[in-house]
C-alpha cells in the first residue's frame, strides 16, 4: 500500500506544484523516490509531529494541498490537538497518511499498534477517514484525495499486501465497493483485512453453504450508509471487520446505522480487536487470534439470524 501511495502521489505531483509531502523523519525505502524527483515539494521536518501538523496547516492556508507521512499513531495522537485546531477547525486540505495501521508492526509492541486511530480521527468534525483494502484502492484513494476539499486521514498498512481487485470502476470517497454478492450475510471490511475477508467468504460459500456479500468500506467517514441499509434489507445480517478496537472504529460507525434502520431488523456483530489493555506481542497472525475466528463468528451470526427469523 505504501508503495502504491507514493507512486500515485509522485505521479500527481509532477503536474501539481501545489502538492507537498512532509514527513516526520520516517519513510526509509519508501519516500526516496519522491524526495529525489520533487525536492521542492518535499520536506523532512524531523521527529516533531506537532510542528509538522502546524507547518502543514500554515502551508495549506496558503493554498497548498499537504500530505503528511509517518507511522502508526505518531501523526495522529501525538499531535491530535494540532490536527483538531489547526487543520480541522480551519477546514484545511491536509492529508494525514499513516502506515502501520492495525497490527502491521505487531512484534514492535503496543506503542506501534495502530488500533485506535480510526476511532480518534473519525471523532473530528469534517475529517474524512479512509482505510483502503488493497493497493489498487490505495492508488485511487490517493488520487481522489489530491482534489478532495478539507482534511483527511489515510490509513495504510505496509508494503506487499495482496491485490484484491482486478479493477475498480468509478472509485469514490464515501462509496463502498461490493467485492462479491450473497444473500445470507454481509461482511463489511475496512483496511488491510479485505483479503482475509474475501478468503473467508469463499470458504463460507464452498464449505458451509453460506452466501456472503463482501463490502470494502474503504471510507469509514463519511460512511456509505446507503450500502449498509441495502445490506440489512438484502441479507438481514451484518458483520463489520476491522483490525482496530471494537469500541470506536468501523463497527462503532455502522452500529447506529443498523440500530436506526427503519426497515428489516438485522443481526449485527463487530469483529475486531477487543477493548483491553494488553502486552501481547508477536506475528500478525498471532495478534489476530485476539479477534477470534471470522469464519466461525460469521456462522454464528447467520445462525442467530435464522433463529430470529
Amino acid at each position, binding site marked *: 500500500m505504501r508503495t502504491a501511495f507514493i507512486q500515485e502521489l509522485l505521479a500527481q505531483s509532477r503536474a501539481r506544484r501545489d502538492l*507537498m509531502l512532509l514527513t516526520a523523519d520516517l519513510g526509509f525505502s519508501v519516500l526516496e523516490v519522491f524526495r529525489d524527483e520533487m525536492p*521542492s515539494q518535499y*520536506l523532512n*521536518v*524531523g521527529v*516533531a509531529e*506537532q*510542528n509538522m*501538523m*502546524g*507547518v*502543514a*496547516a*500554515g*502551508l*495549506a*492556508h*496558503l*493554498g*497548498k494541498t499537504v500530505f503528511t507521512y509517518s507511522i502508526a499513531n505518531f501523526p495522529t495522537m501525538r499531535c491530535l*490537538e*494540532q490536527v483538531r*485546531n*489547526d487543520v480541522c*477547525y*480551519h477546514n484545511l486540505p491536509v492529508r494525514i497518511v499513516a502506515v502501520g495501521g492495525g497490527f502491521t508492526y505487531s512484534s514492535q509492541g503496543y506503542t506501534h499498534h495502530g488500533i485506535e486511530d480510526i476511532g480518534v480521527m473519525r471523532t473530528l468534525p469534517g475529517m474524512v477517514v479512509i482505510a483502503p483494502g488493497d493497493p489498487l484502492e490505495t492508488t485511487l484513494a490517493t488520487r481522489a484525495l489530491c482534489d478532495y476539499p478539507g482534511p483527511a486521514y489515510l490509513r495504510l498498512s505496509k508494503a506487499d499486501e495482496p491485490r484484491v481487485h482486478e479493477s475498480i470502476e468509478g472509485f469514490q470517497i464515501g462509496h463502498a465497493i461490493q467485492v462479491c454478492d450473497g444473500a445470507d450475510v454481509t461482511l463489511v471490511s475496512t483496511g488491510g483485512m479485505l483479503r482475509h475477508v474475501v478468503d473467508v467468504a469463499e470458504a463460507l460459500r464452498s464449505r458451509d453453504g453460506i452466501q456472503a456479500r463482501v463490502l470494502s468500506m474503504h471510507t469509514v467517514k463519511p460512511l456509505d450508509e446507503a450500502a449498509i441499509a441495502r445490506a440489512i434489507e438484502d441479507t438481514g445480517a451484518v458483520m463489520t471487520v476491522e483490525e482496530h478496537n471494537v469500541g470506536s472504529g468501523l463497527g462503532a460507525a455502522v452500529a447506529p446505522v443498523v440500530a436506526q434502520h427503519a426497515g428489516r431488523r438485522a443481526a449485527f456483530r463487530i469483529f475486531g480487536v477487543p477493548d483491553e489493555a494488553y502486552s501481547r506481542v508477536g506475528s500478525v497472525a498471532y495478534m489476530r487470534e485476539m479477534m477470534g475466528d471470522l469464519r466461525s463468528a460469521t456462522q454464528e451470526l447467520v445462525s442467530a439470524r435464522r433463529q430470529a427469523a
Partner: protein
Amino acid sequence: MPNIEATKELARRIREDALRMVHAANASHIGTGLSMADILAVLYGGVLRVDPKRPAWSDRDRLVMSKGHGAAALYAALANAGFFEVARLDTFCQDGTALAGHVSHHVPGVDFSTGSLGHGLSLACGVALGLKVDARAGRAFAILSDGECDEGSIWEAALFAPHHKLDNLVAIVDYNKIQSFGSVKEVLDLEPFADKWAAFRWDVEVVDGHDHEALARVLEAAPKAGRPRAVIAHTVKGKGVEFMEGKLLWHYKAPDAEQLRAALDQVRGSS
C-alpha cells in the same frame, strides 16, 4: 516606519476598548491584553503590510496570535485599524458572535484561530515556508506568551525555523513575567531566555515592549539573511492600569463598573 504618535493613540484605544469588552462580557485575560497593547499598536499602526479593505489580499503579512487568550486586545486593534466596525466589539463573547473569547479566524483580519498554547509558531513557520517556496512577498509574525514557551511544540518550531532559513518570520514574545498560576520565575523559569533563542540560531532582539520607537525599530529592521527574528519584549502585565500592573489576579478577573471607570481614566491620562 510607523508614525509613533499614531501608534500611541492606537495603543490607548486598544486598552480602552479591551477594558470595556472584558467588563461587558465579564471575561478574563485583561492583564495580557494590556501587556501587549503596545506591540499590537506598532504592528497594526504601520509595520504589518495588510489592507483592512482587502483582508484576504494574497501578498499580505500574516500575524498569528499564538497567545489566543489575548483576543480582546487583538480584536480591538483590528477594529481600530479599520478591519471592521468598532461597535462590533460590543458583541465580544455574546451569543452568536464571531468574536470568541479566544482568537477566531471568523473575525475579519484574523487568519488563524488559536487558544491552546504552543500552536502558533508552527503555523507561522508553515506560512513563512510556503511564502518562500513560491517566492512570494509577505512575512509571517507570531506573538507568543512567556508561559506558552513551556510547551515543547514551541521549541520544535524554534528548531525548525532557522534550519529552513525562514528570514521572513518574526516571533515576538510578550514577556510579562506572569503566567497562569504564578510568576514565570516560580512556575518554570525561562532564563536565560534570549540566550536560548540565540542558541537555536535566531536573530534575537531584546526590547522594552512598551517603547514604541524601540519596537518599531526591531520589527522594521531588514532581516539578517537566513535567520528568523525573535523579539523578546519585556512587558508589564496589566500595563497602563496601576492596580492591575504585575497582578496575577487580572489574568482572571474582569473589572467591575467602578474599576472600569478608574482604569479608563488612567489609560486616557497616559496618552
